[in-house]
């Protein structure tokens, strides 16, 4: 077979790969949008469910997801960024720190259901918070902590060492250098990591299965110690519990659409930030 022909076939296969991949993406988005949009209405977005989950809206689930995400963010962002700053700027550069860095990176790849179990054992039972927004937020926060630490560390690492040297050579202290030179430079990377973590937290189900989420909540959550409805869990529950599969499937489509929309918005924000950063550095 001639070289030219082999090349043509090979390259066609590559193009086919990416075409099929994108096809999958569009098929998923297509189905969810077409069938989901039928259910979306103002009522859907703002009203609680009625009639055994077959009518009304999913507002409590949306609110619940918001609360859980907020809680996870409040817990994990400051902790994660500070940890990354310590690991990258303050800690001695010996191999113990390297091992810590490795372990943190690898924890980011641990299955989310493991975090769910951890949350169950520690927050729900040991600390006695019960199935609540608090337990769920903390569990989600710990889920996403390694991701934030990793992403922030990479962003800090990417700041050229010569900038730190230039700052210190001018007589700046270490903290001044971090605050005025390193952090601003690393900010786009850190922000991207944070934003993607938000997306992750909003869409996770396994960690909240045993720690926060319920299928039905009367009204809205009253405190951080109460159970909560959440969009991802709601989708799962609609498909596996309840007695009206047709209507519930339709509602599930609607929830998927909302989740998809949220996630898309978040990804877009991250992409825009990265583009703007590239433009500034020219």
């Amino acid at each position, binding site marked *: 077979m001639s070289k030219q022909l082999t090349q043509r076939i090979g390259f066609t296969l590559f193009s086919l*790969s990416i075409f099929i991949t994108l096809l999958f*993406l569009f098929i998923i988005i297509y*189905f969810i949008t077409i069938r989901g949009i039928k259910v979306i209405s103002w009522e859907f977005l703002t009203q609680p469910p009625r009639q055994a989950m077959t009518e009304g809206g999913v507002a409590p689930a949306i609110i619940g997801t918001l609360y859980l995400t907020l809680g996870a963010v409040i817990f994990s962002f400051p902790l994660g960024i500070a940890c990354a700053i310590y690991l990258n700027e303050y800690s001695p550069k010996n191999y113990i720190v390297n091992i810590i860095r490795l372990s943190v990176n690898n924890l980011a790849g641990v299955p989310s259901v493991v975090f769910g179990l951890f949350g169950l054992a520690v927050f729900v039972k040991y600390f006695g918070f019960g199935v609540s927004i608090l337990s769920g937020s903390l569990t989600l926060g710990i889920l996403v902590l390694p991701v934030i630490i990793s992403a922030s560390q990479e962003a800090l690492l990417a700041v050229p060492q010569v900038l730190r040297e230039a700052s210190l050579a001018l007589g700046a202290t270490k903290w001044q250098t971090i605050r005025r030179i390193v952090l601003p430079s690393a900010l786009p990377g850190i922000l991207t990591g944070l934003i993607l973590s938000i997306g992750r937290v909003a869409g996770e189900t396994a960690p909240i299965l045993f720690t926060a989420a319920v299928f039905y909540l009367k009204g809205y959550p009253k405190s951080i110690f109460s159970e909560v409805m959440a969009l991802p869990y709601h989708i799962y529950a609609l498909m596996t519990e309840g007695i009206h599969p047709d209507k519930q499937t339709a509602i599930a489509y609607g929830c998927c659409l909302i989740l998809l929309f949220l996630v898309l918005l978040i990804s877009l924000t991250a992409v825009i930030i990265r583009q703007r950063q590239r433009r500034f550095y020219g």
Partner: protein
Amino acid sequence: MLRFKENLYRWIFTIIAFASLVFLLGIVIVLFKEALPIFKKVKVLEFIFGKYWYPTYQPPEFGIFPLIMASLWVSIGAMLVCIPLGVGSALYLNELASPRQKAILKPLIEILASIPSVVYGFFGMVVLAPFLQNLFNLPTGLCALTASITLGIMAIPTVCSIAEDALSYVPNSFREASFALGANRWETLIKVVIPSAGSGISTAVILGMSRAIGETMTVLMVAGGAAVIPKSFFDPVRPMTSAIAAEMGETSIGSDHFHALFAIALILFLITFLFNIIAEFISRRYRLKLGLNI
């Protein structure tokens, strides 16, 4: 005064960092603590290789081999989908895509990556499963095949982005040298670039597999749920993650079933941790080999 502030900041960061690390260490500790009790009732080998998972029977049986097999089948099936598509896409992006195309395609693939797993599970349940059921005339579309395909699609972005990174690390000078010797683009790719990026691509595969094994919601909704050793891809199966997610809600805290599920979680944790470490190790040696800074 300034020196005092400086030291204060240093201490604040140190304490916060250690607090975070304590939490993360806590995960490992808790897993062990809650998992070990089951091994007083069941020997480790019996647990791992036992063929019968009947945790709710009297007396209960705690053999997770069917669960492990299920995870394995589903993951390997997923690999069959995501490796060709993921690596192929990476090769397209690296070799054939114009910068403009790349700027659009890469974010699109990232979007695929950020779709929540429950949405994939849902899609698998309501679109893919009925489709496959009709296509192959199956009693149910919720089986290992459906799970494999859905998981495979989920893992494509992981494999693609890591493989693409690996390919982009191959220095241009390698390509130029090959062209200068008269090779065309295809030959250069196959004989020079891909072998050089080999370790990086292995990393992508390993991490993709790690992702597939650890996925919970998708397999929970799509794999079917039968804790039986699969004999074909059309069998419904219950991978380890589904077992935990499905059964935890029904067990009482502190019961044997509870501890058994934690033991499964521990094993899962160790497997994925191991995979990730291997991947990290390979990728370091890869960068060293190419002469890049770590």
